[in-house]
């Protein structure tokens, strides 16, 4: 497989072209929005909780590259049905494994934008820990 085929493999393109859980939930219990200041990518995430702090539904919208959109789409699938407290401390490696492609530091920022934004939404609603440092390699993701 060429580097090209590795990065833009079928499943990524599928999530990019048909994102899961696309669209904002209304009403929702938690929401957050974030941008990647390096490229202007934007993601908004909304969450609805079920019993306790279990994530019942997630919805997102955004503009961005294939990697950031596909990664956020995959993320939403990954966290549904799991408790907020668990997702808040979910290591980024778990998502990266799911994405399953080699990423350079700049593209890593694209892939992790949605996860950071989701963690902020959970923090706002449930007081769970904020995402730590996302590394200084290429500028931080900004949240608003």
């Amino acid at each position: 497989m060429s580097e090209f085929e590795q990065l833009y493999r079928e499943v990524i393109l599928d999530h990019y072209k048909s994102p899961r859980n696309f669209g904002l939930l209304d009403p929702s219990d938690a929401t957050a929005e974030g941008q990647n200041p390096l490229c202007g990518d934007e993601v908004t995430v909304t969450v609805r909780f079920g019993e306790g702090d279990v994530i019942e539904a997630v919805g997102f919208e955004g503009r961005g590259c294939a990697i950031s959109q596909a990664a956020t789409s995959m993320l939403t699938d990954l966290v549904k049905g799991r408790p907020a407290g668990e997702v808040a401390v979910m290591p980024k490696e778990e998502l990266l494994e799911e994405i399953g492609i080699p990423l350079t530091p700049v593209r890593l920022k694209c892939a992790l934008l949605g996860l950071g934004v989701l963690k902020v939404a959970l923090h706002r609603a449930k007081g769970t820990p904020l995402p730590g440092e996302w590394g200084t390699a290429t500028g931080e993701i900004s949240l608003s």
Partner: protein
Amino acid sequence: MTTTAVQTLDAPRLRADFPIFEQRFHGKPLAFLDSAASAQKPRAVIDAMSTFYETSYANVHRGVYQLAEMATEALEGSRETVRGLLNAPSAREVIFVRNATEGINLVAYAWGLSNLGPGDLVVATELEHHSNFVPWQYIAGRTGAGFRLLPVDDEGELQLNALDAVAAGGTVKVVAAGVVSNSLGTINPVERLAAWAHERGAIMVADAAQAAPHRRVDVQALGADFVAISAHKMCGPSGVGALWGRAELLERMEPFLLGGHMIRAVGDERTTWGELPHKFEAGTAPMAEAVGFAAAVDYLHGVGFDAIERHEHELTAYALGRLAELPWVTAYGPPADRRAGIVSFNVDGVHPHDVAQILDFDGVAIRAGHHCCQPLMRRLGVTATNRASFYLYTVREEIDRLVEGLHKARKVLA
């Protein structure tokens, strides 16, 4: 132009001067179409700095010993070279800074903090790079002055007829404009802006970071009061740039950075400032970088600015022509004859990050993003664009490879 023979350049031959092209990327020769962000370096520049460190290095100015004299001569000789590049009246007016950004901040702080206040206006343009935008917005905010934007039209050219309306209700004190837009390549009529500024008693601050690599920048012809450039965009090293300012203004200004070298006498209560340019150069100078900067200027003079400009115009016209063949590509900015070698565009339905990434796999390096021009991006109604930019080592086939890559990006992602 008074040249009789047409100056041309032989880009394939010049490429041999640049070690970076000896390498392959993703198995392909490097098509470096991101010179507007920073240019590659010829061996002459790299070697000039190594030689300086190996044979003439010491801290400058204050040393009595021979090595310090050699280093001082190297630094001050470089200042003279940069003076010549800009056709500045005197080398005293040439201040070495880290980059154009610092040069503009110097003016914003040292001139702005003492000369701006409520009722005053700073006018910047919608085209500005953040580096000639945010310092003014910030210092205006700190001093209570207003901050206004001169709009561009749909082709990305400044709407000079809006000037008086923009200035309404305030006293214009600063006009800040780039000579060449780094996003669109637009060449701005800085001479006319300077005249307008001076009619109102305002100062004209010209950001020539993107112009100086590609065209003659003559500070006297521009009529500006301050002009900032960066070496790294013109085949020189990182870590150095220059600010030119009119001596009368520099002399009346407060200093900016304080510390060693910029003083006359340090009292416990009060300190007096040194003469130009030292008053604005606190601490140890970017000495080797200045030497590399001068080597870059010499290199560019050797190639010839007229030849560089002509070469880039040809490439730009060619690139715009090729992009115009693609109905799913939107190109921004004015026609080729009114711009420098920069082409910004978008591919329908494909994010610039993905375009740049897919091109990279073919060894084609372009930039994708807001190019430090978020206000302009808003005006264009996009968050980001792709940008291909050309320099003296760019060849036509690289533009063909770019266009090929766009087809590929569209096929995969759109």
